[in-house]
Structures are given as structure tokens and as C-alpha cells.
């Protein structure tokens, strides 16, 4: 049967039908958002106090959550990929839990651990007067809990496929462990770090369930953009749509950054 130049590996034409359904299914909600956006008073909504507060808080907390993920997540990824220690499999499974856990459940779990009556949180309160719940740092905790696994898994995966011989070569030339990590491993990991970082940032930015459960909802303090969108939906739906546009813009921006990175690594590999 002649395929008139179509390679044999390309799918049969009938596959195009469900594929188009899938594409429409994913695309139409975004079209709806753009179509129904209150373009005429968009400026007023976006520059309102609530919106600006929510945008600023979202950017600050998502950035902080990403930084937390880098500071403690990357070392964990390194250990998981390269170190032999008892319970490593359990640790790896634990890292994936926030990925599959409904975020609201994550929020409740965070309250029971770090809340005022939580198993750890009660000591924060009594020893240092520190409370996380209902504060901006609480938002960072909720976001980091949900988003950090994206960085850990991306970096761990990259570390495991990294050619260890390059590092061994550096070792034979007299470099110490930290020097090798800094001068050899880290540059090789850079694409994975960027990809994982962007994913983590995007996930943190969109976090809703764990944030509202653990950190509550107070404009200017813990009300991030997704929360403002939800609350807006109960009061002024057009405001919710306008705020959704900002989230969409920031998320797509992150995605474009990520795609660029992937394309570049694809070309170099």
C-alpha cells in the first residue's frame, strides 16, 4: 500500500480525529478566557490594590519557594542520585508524595505538622513565638511543599543519566568532590536545573489548595493570585477573569522560557 511519501511511522489519518479533539479540549478554555476578558476595564482591574498586592505576593512567594527548593531540594536530589544510604527508596517515594497528594490534603498535613497545634509547629510557637500559618512565609512553605518535588525529580533524573566518567576524569586530575560538583557536574546539570526551576516556579505560582488551607486568605498578606481569582469569582467574576489573564501570561512566559531551554539542550545532546 503506497503512502505517497508519508513515512511508515507516521500515524494513520484516523488518529487525527481524537488528536484534534484533544487539542480543542485543551485550547478552548484558554480561548474562552481571552474571549470573555473584560478588555475595556482591564487596566482598572489590574492596577487595583487587590490585584497588585496579589501579583506582588505571588511573584515574591513563588520566587522564595523556588529558592528554598534549590537550597534544600538540589542537595536531596544529589543524595538520591549518587549516595548509598539506608531508606533511599523510601526517601525517593516520599519525594513523589506531594505530586500525587491533592494539594488541600497537603495543606491539612502542613497544618498538622507546622500549624499552631502541629507536632513541630507547637514548639516553634512556644520557643520562638514563630507562627507560619496565616503569614507570607506560610505561603512559601505551602508552595515549596507542593512544588519542590518537580525540581528534585528533574535534577535527580539528570544526575542519574550524567556520564560519571567525566567526573571521574576530573577526579583523576586531582579535583576534590566539591570542586568537581561546582566545575563539572553543575555546568552539565544547568539545563535540568533551569527546567526544574521553571517548573517549580510555575507550580508554586499556581498553587491554591495547600496555600488556602495552610496559609489562609488575607488580601495583601497571604492572598496570592490564584486565591484572588477564586475569591473574585464569588464577588466580581470579571475581576476573576482579568486576574486569570495575568496568571496565564506569567505561566505561558515560564513555559516559553522552558521550551527554549529544552530546544537548546535537544540540539546540543
Amino acid at each position: 500500500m503506497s503512502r505517497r511519501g508519508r513515512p511508515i511511522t507516521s500515524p494513520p489519518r484516523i488518529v487525527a480525529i481524537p488528536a484534534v479533539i484533544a487539542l480543542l479540549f485543551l485550547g478552548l478554555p484558554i480561548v474562552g478566557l481571552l474571549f470573555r476578558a473584560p478588555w475595556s476595564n482591564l487596566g482598572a482591574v489590574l492596577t487595583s490594590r487587590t490585584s497588585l498586592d496579589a501579583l506582588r505576593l505571588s511573584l515574591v512567594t513563588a520566587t522564595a519557594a523556588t529558592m528554598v527548593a534549590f537550597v534544600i531540594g538540589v542537595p536531596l536530589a544529589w543524595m538520591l542520585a549518587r549516595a548509598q544510604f539506608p531508606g533511599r527508596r523510601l526517601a525517593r517515594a516520599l519525594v513523589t508524595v506531594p505530586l500525587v497528594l491533592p494539594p488541600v490534603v497537603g495543606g491539612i498535613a502542613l497544618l498538622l505538622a507546622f500549624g499552631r497545634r502541629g507536632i513541630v509547629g507547637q514548639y516553634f510557637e512556644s520557643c520562638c513565638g514563630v507562627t507560619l500559618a496565616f503569614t507570607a512565609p506560610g505561603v512559601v512553605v505551602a508552595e515549596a511543599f507542593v512544588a519542590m518535588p518537580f525540581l528534585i525529580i528533574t535534577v535527580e533524573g539528570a544526575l542519574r543519566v550524567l556520564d560519571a566518567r567525566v567526573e571521574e576524569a576530573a577526579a583523576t586530575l586531582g579535583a576534590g568532590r566539591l570542586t568537581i560538583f561546582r566545575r563539572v557536574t553543575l555546568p552539565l546539570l544547568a539545563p535540568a536545573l533551569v527546567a526544574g526551576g521553571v517548573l517549580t516556579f510555575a507550580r508554586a505560582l499556581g498553587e491554591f489548595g495547600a496555600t488556602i488551607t495552610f496559609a489562609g486568605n488575607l488580601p495583601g498578606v497571604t492572598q496570592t493570585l490564584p486565591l484572588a481569582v477564586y475569591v473574585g469569582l464569588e464577588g466580581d467574576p470579571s475581576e476573576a477573569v482579568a486576574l486569570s489573564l495575568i496568571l496565564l501570561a506569567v505561566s505561558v512566559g515560564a513555559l516559553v522560557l522552558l521550551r527554549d531551554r529544552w530546544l537548546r539542550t535537544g540540539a546540543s545532546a
Partner: protein
Amino acid sequence: MNSSASFHLFGWRPSRGVARRPHSRLARSALGIVLAPLLLGGCAAHSVQPAAGSIAGSITVFAASSLKGAFATIGAQFEAAHPGVKVIFNFGPSSGLATQITQGAPVDVFAAASTKTMDSVIADGEVKAASTFAANSMEIATPAHPTRSVTSLADLAGAAIKVAICQQDVPCGAAALTLFSQNRIRVTPVTQELDVKAVLTKVQLGEVDAGIVYVTDVKAAKGAVIGIQIPAADNVTTTYPIAPITNSTNGSTAQAFVDYVLSDAGQNVLRAAGFLSP
């Protein structure tokens, strides 16, 4: 990942001649999986509609979170009174439910925690007229094992006291703000929760020292929180309207449910839950 790797994932070994067959079989079964629910869904949408005027089939009732306990009981009684009838509830913040209704959610009855919310749905043409079926007032809920002592409304102004209220677009949030302003106390809440049950949860977990909830919520919590009553003269009362949705597909059953809530039987359940008569 190259194409042979992806074949291995499905358990096929790529070999010349047979390579195309799994392709088309995969396509056919995938198409079946995609289309089956669409077709089934299409059928379900045209499922049995009760004859006009009869009380049958199922109805969907959107109701304010604070009605949860009482309406669950009323729903069960209504179902018992009309065998074969099914009442499906969706409890949530009144204003959120109102938004869903104006966005075309398939709903037959709406019961809100404030006339303002119901008025917005009436203004949108989704409801013709509503009847008031209950009233409620506010109470301070404190944890069963409080860390900081709260004994009156005035205590909520203390800087060390963590207070949770509903967000202001929700009736219980609007009531809390009115409560604070008419008693001239300045309260800075640590959180504005999405609905009254979320406020209650935060109190129950001891994350806040006090929450402004409805009298009925404290009663429904059955000792999980300690209620501090607000003197009637200082308190805020909210009224609950109920109405069948104009373009309900099961209007007669929707009207029957509304009538049941307004009947003595329905009112008794509401009184028992602590609601006031309208």
C-alpha cells in the same frame, strides 16, 4: 526516546510487516475510548424526564454551607416522603454558588444565606421570586482547648488574638464586618476563609483563637468548638431565601422541595438545628 523504545513500552517488537497492525488497532481502540463517554454522555443528557406536574426524578439543590446539616436531614425526609425522588446537594459559599448558577450550572433549587446574594440571581433572571425560610445570627467560636482567653466580642480586638472570618463577598463575612462596625471594634482577622465551614475548621484545629460563625455552626459542631454568645442587641441577623430556578428541567419537584422546606416538617428540622424563624 525513539520509536522502537516506545513500541517496547506497549509490548510490541518492531518488525517489518506487522509494524502497522498494532498501529491501527491502537487507533481503533483509542477512538473507542475517546468516543464512548461522549456517546454515553449524550444519552445521559436526554435521560428520563418526569412528566410535567409530577414529583419524580432527581433535583439538584445549591445551598449555603451553613445549611449543610439541616438540609441533609430535610433532603432525606423529602426523599422518604416521595419514594424514587433523589435530592443532590451542593453546599458552598452562597456567592460562589450564585456565580455558578448565573454561569448556567444545572440546578433546580437555590437556598442562599443572604437576600443580597439571592437578589443578584433574581437580577440575572435565573429566579423569579424567593421565599424567606429561616434566619440566623452570629456567634464567636473558640477552640475546645483555647490557648488565649476570649470571652466577648471586645476581646477580638486584642492584637494577640488570631481571628478568622469569612471573606467579605460571602454572607457570613459580610455579617462579621457589620458585627464589628456596629459594635465599633477594630478587628484585624488573620484570614478570610472561603466559607463558614472553613472558618469553623480553623477554629477546631486551634489555628485561630476565635472565628465568627453562625449560631447553627457552633451547635452543629457538637462540642468540638466552644461558642460565645453575642448579646441580641449587638448581634447581626441574616435571612435565608429559597427559590426554584426558573429554567429547571424538573420544576414541579423543585417547587415541591421548596414547599417542603417552608412546611412545618421542614421548619421543625431548621428550628432543631438552631435556625430562627424568618
